[in-house]
């Protein structure tokens, strides 16, 4: 019984991973099988070009990691909070037309990402809806997809810091000065962040909903009997009960956001000024654009390592919080 399953796993899961791992250590040029006799190992050279050798590959990896890190930092908490809020809202028993709202919130998730991306190109165009709203409020909207300035840097200049302090400008990590690391997501990236939040919150709402329905009504009644107000009931009863769902949403959110590819491919291709470059897109560009398959695969494995680290970290943090909450109760 298990033999066919193992074969399937080997062919479609283990073999591709092993092959990709080998490609990341080889000089395969995309011609013929990567296991052919004319393909040889280059050791860690592909990884060195990305991580230690100064140059464009290292700098672009640094840029893509910076961009994606800000993307994750902005998208994951907001989409999780929004999904939870939406789930709580549509699970209220008194709400009429719950089915309608559930469908409406879920709709962006089932729309094709190509269609959504194209619509966002128009919405955030320099004369698009967003800028029309901004200008009706008397302000002047930015040229969204062409503005590479970091929002945090805009904030610093608002506070009077327009020049990078020498310590931050002259030192850096992965070929990128610290000042660039601290620039925040670019205005263009903000549009992609909004898009991601809009499309995924509905999906995650769907994960929270059954978890909310699964909370026994007796618990809430008991809390009311104990004199807990709405706020306390949420934080002390509902929220702890949702922890498994929260873990799932955060994990899926982290993985999904670190892998962002389709919106970048469709909307910005890493522009403007490389501020929407992400590791997944960079891997594609390196492999298919530059025919540097080894380096492309190496980027994928670096990304893989980052995702594993973040997931483990998040698991530890959630476990910790769970223990203290349990102590207090």
């Amino acid at each position, binding site marked *: 019984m298990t033999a066919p399953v193992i074969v399937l796993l080997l062919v*479609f899961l283990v*073999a*591709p*991973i092993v*092959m*990709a791992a080998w*490609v990341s250590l080889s000089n395969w040029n*995309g*011609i*013929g*099988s*990567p*296991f*052919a*006799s*004319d393909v040889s190992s280059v050791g860690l050279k592909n990884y060195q070009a990305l991580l230690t050798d100064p*140059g*464009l*590959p290292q700098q*672009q990896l640094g840029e893509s990691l910076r961009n994606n890190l800000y993307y994750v930092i902005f998208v994951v908490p907001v989409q999780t909070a929004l999904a939870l809020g939406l789930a709580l809202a549509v699970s209220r028993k008194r709400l009429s037309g719950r089915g309608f709202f559930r469908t409406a919130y879920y709709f962006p998730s089932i729309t094709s990402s190509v269609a959504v991306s194209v619509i966002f190109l128009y919405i955030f*165009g*320099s*004369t698009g809806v967003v800028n029309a709203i901004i200008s009706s409020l008397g302000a002047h909207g930015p*040229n969204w997809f*062409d503005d590479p300035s970091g929002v945090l840097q805009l904030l610093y200049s608002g506070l009077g810091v327009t020049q990078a302090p020498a310590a931050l400008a002259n030192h850096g990590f992965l070929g990128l000065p610290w000042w660039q690391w601290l620039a925040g997501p670019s205005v263009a990236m903000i549009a992609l962040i909004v898009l991601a939040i809009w499309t995924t919150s509905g999906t995650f709402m769907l994960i929270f909903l059954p978890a909310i329905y699964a909370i026994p009504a007796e618990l809430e009644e008991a809390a009311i009997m104990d004199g807990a107000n709405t706020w306390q009931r949420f934080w002390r009863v509902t929220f702890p009960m949702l922890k498994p769902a929260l873990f799932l949403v955060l*994990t*899926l959110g*982290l*993985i999904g956001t*670190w*892998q962002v*590819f*389709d919106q970048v491919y469709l909307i910005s291709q*890493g*522009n*403007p*000024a*490389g501020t929407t470059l992400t*590791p*997944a897109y960079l*891997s*594609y*560009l390196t*492999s*298919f*654009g*530059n*025919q*540097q*398959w080894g380096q*492309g*695969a190496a*980027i*994928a494995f670096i*990304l*893989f390592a980052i*995702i*594993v680290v973040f*997931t*483990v970290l998040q698991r530890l943090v959630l476990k910790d919080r769970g223990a203290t909450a349990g102590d207090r109760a």
Partner: protein
Amino acid sequence: MKGSRRLTAAAIAVSVVALTAACSSSGGFGSPSSTGSAAAATKPNSKPLTLMFGSSGPAETKAVDAAAAAFTKKSGIKVQVIPASDLQQQVAQGFAGNQPPDVFYLDTLTFQNYAKDGVLDPYAPTLPNASNFSPDLRDSFSYKGKFICAPKDASTLALYINTKDWQQAGLGAPPANWSQLEADAKKLTTAGRTGLVIDQNEAGIDEFLYQNGGTVQNSAGNVALDSPQNVQALTFLKSMLTSGIMKFPSQLNAGFSGQAFGENKAAMDVIGNWENGTLQTDYPNVKFKVVPLPAGPTGIHATLSFTNCWGVPKQSQNLGGALEFVKFLTTPQQEMTFAKAFGVIPSLEAAQAQYVQAYPQYAVFVQELKYAHPDIAIAGATQAEDAYNSALEQLASTSPATILKTAQQNLQAVVNSDK
């Protein structure tokens, strides 16, 4: 852990290719790629050919289908025509699986990558019309001095002028040099319209470097971007940008300069002959004329040329048949058929002469070929070029010297790694 099993989209893409390779390579895992010796395989056999191309639209697809059918009728070799949705990726997958298409469209940059890997059949000098291709097109498809594959078409940049705007501004002869271009752009700029639009990448900007006596790559193959001439040329463009008489398409909410020109958000546009198709289908009411690009301050004429070739892999199972097919496709007669069907400019000088007669209004594109420089193409430089393009986008807010210095370093690093 559930998540850790999921690789990134890119990793999956890479491994799918790897898997395809493993599944389709005839000898299974570890078999050396089968590259038949060129000499033995040059006789055509009856194996059907595949032709993969990126189509500009139904007209091109129909014309290529018809050419394939005509070849089959003549030679008895069947041809399967595959319009690719992402040509570069699909050809790459073919090579990875040891089954590349027998004939395919190949752009100049990807050509460099494949030529470096030595997977292309260097058939071009054996064609009967080999010496009839324009010299700059031959250069585009030569690797280390060897002419490899036959250019299938030619495009050059020219200046498109909206004739209605031009008359309203009371202007006379088209601009012959930079200062006239600047003066005309200034007069053509109104509240809702800019004088000139150019594309915000090297393919829209590098011709100005050549016009100013600069160059992108010197004859030794080294990058020569950070020259004073180039800095001066970019500074000229920057001054037009900052004064608002020239704009980039993104500032005009357009995807490319031709769209801004079609929507009359700009009165002049530096763009290639592909704009003719855009204007015909999307903006049929725009009245325009095409003139040569203005010369630089010292009178140097220059433009960029763009082209594709008919790529043929060495490992084709019917190499002889593929070469017969390319021979058929690169006759003046067939090139003119393509020109009539979907507007491309022939690569053969004999066919160009016919083209100029048939389309005198577009003769300028052919005339400009004599001082055209091939668009930059360096093996492995896709990302370095992207970085250069990204920097050019920010021209209005960056120093030209910095842009050129950084691009020089990045591109030269790629050249060095190839030595």
